């Protein structure tokens, strides 16, 4: 089966600093992969490359069957991205934000789609309120609405829980469950291991610019994700 995301020997350098060092990574269609790792491991850089926001220095990257960066527009059409920043305009209403992004993606029957998405993220009642009056949790839910508006095959979440309180994080969990249940391929970075353990079907540990280990949830063999994560990092340090 052709993987939805296929990365081979990916290298990313910023000047003299090498952030990704020959990273290999594969995600099958419908998988929910949690990408975990310490600060500075290169998680955000990696997601930005998958999102076509940054060019690889070397290596091959294919998303949804299209090569990056050569076929970036085709990849973007099939990709939804949620980061710790909401990518929303505070001086526009929730509906206007979605309408703007809908026009950028050329979504047909946009009004109906906006209604559907606002229902999905539980913001239908606040559709005419300015986004700057929203709490952080509501903004993050609307950010998910923005990302799923064009019904993408692949979704990338970069630390979506940053700055959320417990209630807002729990609501975000519900939305993420719904998004994942629709068969989308999801890659999510997070430091909240307990949360991603409940959501993801596979875990990959990114350390020192490479995938140090990857395991399916069914294969954790009694170990919890935190133990697996710590063991992987310790083994990495020992071998270094």
């Amino acid at each position, binding site marked *: 089966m052709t993987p939805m995301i296929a990365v081979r020997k990916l290298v990313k350098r910023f000047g003299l600093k090498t952030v990704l060092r020959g990273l290999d990574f594969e995600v099958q269609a419908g998988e929910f992969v949690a990408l975990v790792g310490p600060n500075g491991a290169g998680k955000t850089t990696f997601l930005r490359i998958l999102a076509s926001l940054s060019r690889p220095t070397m290596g091959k990257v294919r998303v949804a069957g299209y090569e990056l960066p050569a076929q970036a527009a085709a990849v*973007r059409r099939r990709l939804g991205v949620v980061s710790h920043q909401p990518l929303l305009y505070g001086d526009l209403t929730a509906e206007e934000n979605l309408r703007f992004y809908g026009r*950028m993606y050329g979504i047909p029957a946009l009004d109906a789609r906006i209604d559907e998405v606002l229902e999905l993220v539980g913001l239908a009642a606040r559709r005419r309120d300015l986004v700057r009056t929203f709490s952080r949790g509501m903004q993050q839910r609307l950010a998910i609405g923005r990302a799923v508006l064009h019904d993408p095959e692949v979704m990338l979440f970069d630390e979506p829980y940053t700055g959320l309180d417990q209630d807002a994080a729990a609501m975000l969990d519900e939305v993420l469950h719904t998004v994942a249940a629709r068969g989308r391929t999801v890659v999510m970075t997070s430091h909240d291991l307990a949360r991603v353990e409940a959501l993801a079907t596979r875990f990959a540990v990114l350390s020192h610019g490479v995938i140090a280990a990857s395991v399916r949830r069914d294969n954790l063999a009694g170990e919890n994700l935190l133990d697996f994560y710590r063991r992987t990092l310790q083994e990495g340090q020992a071998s270094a």
Partner: protein
Amino acid sequence: MKKWSRPVKDFLRATRAVAWKDLAAELRSRELLSAMLVFALLVILIFNFALELDVKTRRSVTSGVLWATFIFAGTLGLNRSMAVEKDRGCLDGLLLAPVDRAAIYFGKAISNLVFMLIVEMIVLPIYSVLYNVSLFEPRLLGVILLGSVGYTAVGTLLAAMSVQTRTRDVLLPILLFPVVIPVAIAAVKASGGILQAWPMEDIMPWINLLLVYDVIFISVAFMVFDYVVEE
């Protein structure tokens, strides 16, 4: 449907969407317009008191004062317009859209031009009253339009470049003013010529320079914007 009509339609749709979004947001916040307007009015007021001139001399300095006001006020607007995109990560949101990135540039440039023209249309009558000079000459309005197009064309491109740096507020004027000198000189000369009733053949070279500058910088921005915003 012709082969090329779909990409052109997509391009125009994205350009319209970006411009609409900027105008709608500004209509609510009025942050950018009020900052530009207050700054512009202060500049013409200060010049008015600093240069206590007779009517004839006023006509000769009007174009310089006017364009200095437009250019400095315009820089405020350009900086703010791109900073709004960067601060909430919205620039990434725009770059993630499956559209030609030049459409994003044109949308931003159009909204910047509209903001600049609004400020100019408010400043002109106030300037006329303060300096006792009539500025409602169709040819002068044409020159102001051409100069503003050139200024926002290059300004939007350089603002997109400088907004990615930590020193964006300082960097934009440093990058922009040297590049925009041909527009400033041509606009000042053409405006001055019109106000002082020069013969048209003396004014035309400056208007032609403005036209050429506009075409060159719009074309350059169209070709390089993708690389400018690329990480």
